[in-house]
Every structure is written in structure tokens, then in C-alpha cells.
């Protein structure tokens, strides 16, 4: 075979690469930085900074409604955000009312509380409460904005909300300073903005999966969202501001190497495409 023929054969083979080789390259690029413990510094974007500043300016003793609207499907992106928010709020002595519109949400937010509350000496029912899950999407949002205990008569564990000390005098979302949402999709941050931020004039901010990050920029520019974390990178930026590194920062080196791999894939695929096209002429 001629040299040109060999080159053409190679191009054809590479452009029809077995998908499992691509999978293996992705796997190696993601795993190696984790194994060697590569650490990186992140630049913090304006949406993350403004959310951090908004949470940081909450006075001690104020209340935040932490809407944990996510499930294990987006755990690596959103769980670190949930952790970072609770760390920040506890460090500011802000009281947290957690609830979820996603059935798998409450055990995740409870796990965050169980891990973090003892370090800050926080007590369940006095400093934080987990109201659990409520079905009903926007109906729950508007209901809880008008009547918190009517919507959540009991907490996650079946304790009547009337018997929970920190909820004395908290009748609706009008009594909280801010809604911090950890959102995996619908129902989530878009609906909190649509139904609550605009209608009840309560500040809303939070974190979303990277997939839905770009859709949220109009809300940031319009001021309907006070700030936003998008994906694991957003969580990492928040962790960096808090100076409490977690999975968000730990995963960034792997994230970098897989992104480079995907870009190389795209570059090679286009190179083969142009070579093919030139040959066609």
C-alpha cells in the first residue's frame, strides 16, 4: 500500500474509533487527577461572588429557607453546594428551615445537617429544622409563602411544627430573609423566581446543575436572582470563598483534564472531517 493509502486508512480507522476507547480515555482523564490528588485554584465569577456576599450580609438570628430540590442524579454537583451553604449559614448564626419539593431531597439535606451541625454546636429545632418533602410543586411554593405551618404541619420526622421552638413567630416565607435553593431542575430555581421572588419580593439565590446554568443568566441580569452557582465549578468557587475545600474543588483538576480530552476529540473529529472533504473534492 502507498504512503497516501496508509494515511487514508489510518484516518478512516481513527474517525470510526470504537466508542469504548473513547470511554477509556475519559475514565483515565477523570481518575488520574483524583488519584494523584491534583489541586487547583479557581477564579471566582461575579454570580458566585454576589450570592456569597448576599449570604454573608445576613444578620445573625435571621432565617433562611433552604430549598433542597435535588436528587442523587445530580449529587456530585449539588451536594457540595448544599454543604457549602449550610457551612456558611451556620458560621453566620443564621437559622435554617430546610424543605424539599423533590422526594429524594430530605435525606440528603439531613445528612448535611448531621455532618455539620455538631461542629457549630447547632441544635435541631432551635437552629435548624428539616421540614422534609412536600408534593405539589408550585402549589407548595405559593402555599408556603403564605402559610408555612399549614403547608408543612409536621417536620420530616413527624414532629408537629407548632412544637418546634425556632418556628415560633415564623408564619410564612415573608418572615425569612432569603430563599437559598439547591436546584436540579423542575420544580426548582426557575419556579422559585417565577412564583415567589417576583410575587412576594423575597430574595432568591442558589445553585443549579451546570446544564441549567446558562438559562439562568437572564434572571441574574434582571436582579430576580441575587446570585448563582452553576455546577461543580460553582460549588468549588463558593468553597474557595469560604476557605473550606470540598468535592467542588477536589474535582476541578479532573474536570480540566476531561474537558481538554473532549476538546481534543472535537478537534480530531473535525480534522478528519476536513481531510475527508478535501479528498472528496
Amino acid at each position, binding site marked *: 500500500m502507498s504512503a497516501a493509502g496508509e494515511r487514508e486508512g489510518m484516518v478512516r480507522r481513527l474517525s470510526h474509533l470504537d466508542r469504548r476507547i*473513547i*470511554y477509556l*480515555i*475519559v*475514565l483515565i482523564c*477523570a481518575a488520574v487527577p483524583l488519584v494523584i490528588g491534583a489541586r*487547583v*485554584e479557581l*477564579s471566582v*465569577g*461575579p454570580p458566585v461572588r454576589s450570592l456569597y456576599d448576599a449570604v454573608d450580609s445576613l444578620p445573625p438570628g435571621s432565617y433562611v429557607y433552604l430549598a433542597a430540590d435535588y*436528587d*442523587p*442524579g*445530580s*449529587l*456530585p454537583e449539588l451536594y457540595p453546594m448544599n454543604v457549602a451553604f449550610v457551612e456558611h449559614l451556620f458560621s453566620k448564626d443564621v437559622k435554617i428551615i430546610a424543605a424539599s419539593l423533590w422526594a*429524594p431531597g430530605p*435525606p440528603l439535606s*439531613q*445528612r448535611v445537617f*448531621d455532618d455539620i451541625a455538631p461542629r457549630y454546636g447547632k441544635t435541631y429545632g432551635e437552629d435548624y429544622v428539616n421540614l422534609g418533602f*412536600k*408534593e*405539589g*410543586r408550585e*402549589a*407548595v411554593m*405559593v*402555599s408556603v409563602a*403564605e*402559610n408555612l405551618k*399549614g*403547608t408543612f404541619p409536621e417536620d*420530616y420526622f*413527624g414532629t408537629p411544627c407548632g412544637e418546634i421552638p425556632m418556628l415560633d413567630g415564623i408564619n410564612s416565607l415573608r418572615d425569612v430573609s432569603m430563599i437559598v435553593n439547591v436546584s436540579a431542575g423542575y420544580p426548582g430555581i426557575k419556579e422559585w423566581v417565577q412564583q415567589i421572588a417576583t410575587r412576594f419580593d423575597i430574595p432568591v439565590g442558589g445553585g443549579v446543575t451546570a446544564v441549567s446554568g*446558562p*438559562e439562568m*443568566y*437572564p434572571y*441574574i*441580569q434582571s436582579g430576580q436572582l441575587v446570585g448563582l452557582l452553576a455546577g461543580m*465549578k460553582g460549588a468549588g468557587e463558593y468553597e474557595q470563598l469560604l476557605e473550606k475545600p470540598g468535592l467542588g474543588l477536589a474535582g*476541578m*483538576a479532573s*474536570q*480540566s*483534564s*476531561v*474537558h*481538554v*480530552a*473532549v*476538546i481534543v*476529540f*472535537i478537534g*480530531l*473529529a*473535525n480534522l478528519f*472531517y476536513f481531510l475527508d472533504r478535501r479528498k472528496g473534492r
Partner: protein
Amino acid sequence: MKTEVPVVIAFVAGMLMIVSLFSPHPVFAGPAAVMRNWAIVITAFAYVLGVANIARISAGTVRTRGRDWRYKVVLLASLGGMLGIGLAGGIQGGGLFDWSYMNVMVPMQSTMFSLLAFFIASAAYRAFRARSVEATLLLVTAVIVMLGRVPVGERLWSGLPAFTEWIMEVPNMAAKRGIMIGAALGAISTGLKMILGLERSYLGSDK
């Protein structure tokens, strides 16, 4: 009864939600609050109906020894087991229910979604081609964003994170706002058609 009653129910429920936005008067706010509470309860029933349907179809497959019936036995056993643990023992943290959630449901659901990382890399290799001006714009933006959102991009050019943020805040935001305004107009018109009974496809067939 089969068509008129549901149309009236949808009209009343929808109008209550809309009118209560414009008027906080108890005449509207009270019934709207009641209707919201009803929606919460009925939606919960709808989810249980969905699960009952999964159980019914799976049980049918097992009964007729249909395709993959052995797997349906596993499905029904997992469903029954989780229901038994949760309904009898409660959902409190630290119990068997919580253990099953953390060690069975969490790893499987997160792993299912993590498979998409492999599929999207493979798709990028196979399908992402600069065939036209439009496709090139899409491709170039994707590459800039992928580099600009990770630390390696900053090493290449210190201004890349800020430039990526500019892309997100200006051209991306403008287009997303356009889509949002268009979608809002569509949602308003579809919603009103449903409330006014002009759109009845949710009722299914007329039988």
C-alpha cells in the same frame, strides 16, 4: 358529566390561581389556598398511581412469563421490600429505610447519570462538525466555554474566565432572554386555553 365537569373544574381551579395573584381579598385568597392544598394531595395520589401502574404492568409480565419476567420479579421484590420497610418502620434517618436509600438508590441513580459523561464525549467525537457558519459558532463557543470554566483555560490566557463570563452574560443571555420571552408567551396562551376549555387533550379520548 364526562367532559363538562372536568372542564368546569379546570376553569375554576385555574382562575382561582390567577385571580388570587391580582386580588388578595379573602373571597379569592381563601378558596385559592384551599385549592392549592387540594392540588398538593391530589398530586401525591397521582404519584402513587404511577407506582401502582409500574407494579401492575410488572405483575402482568410475571404472570404471563413475558419478556424479562425474572427481572420484573426483582423489581416487585425491591418495590415491596422498600414499601414494607418504609411504611412499617418509618423513614427516620439511621434506620433500614435510610440505609437502603443511601446505599442502594443513591449510588445507582448517580451512576446512571454519570454514564452520560461517556456518551457525551463519544457524541462530541462523532457528531460535532463545523459544517456551516452556524455549526462553527456553536462549536467555537462550546470549546471556549469548556476551557474558560476550568483552571486550565486560565493558564492558557489569564483573561479567558472573564471572557467566558462575558459570553454568558451578553450573547448567551440575550438569546436565552429571547427564548424565555417566546416561551412565556407560549405558556400563557397554552395555559389560558386549558383553563378556558379550548384545549382538552389532557382529557384523553371522548369515551
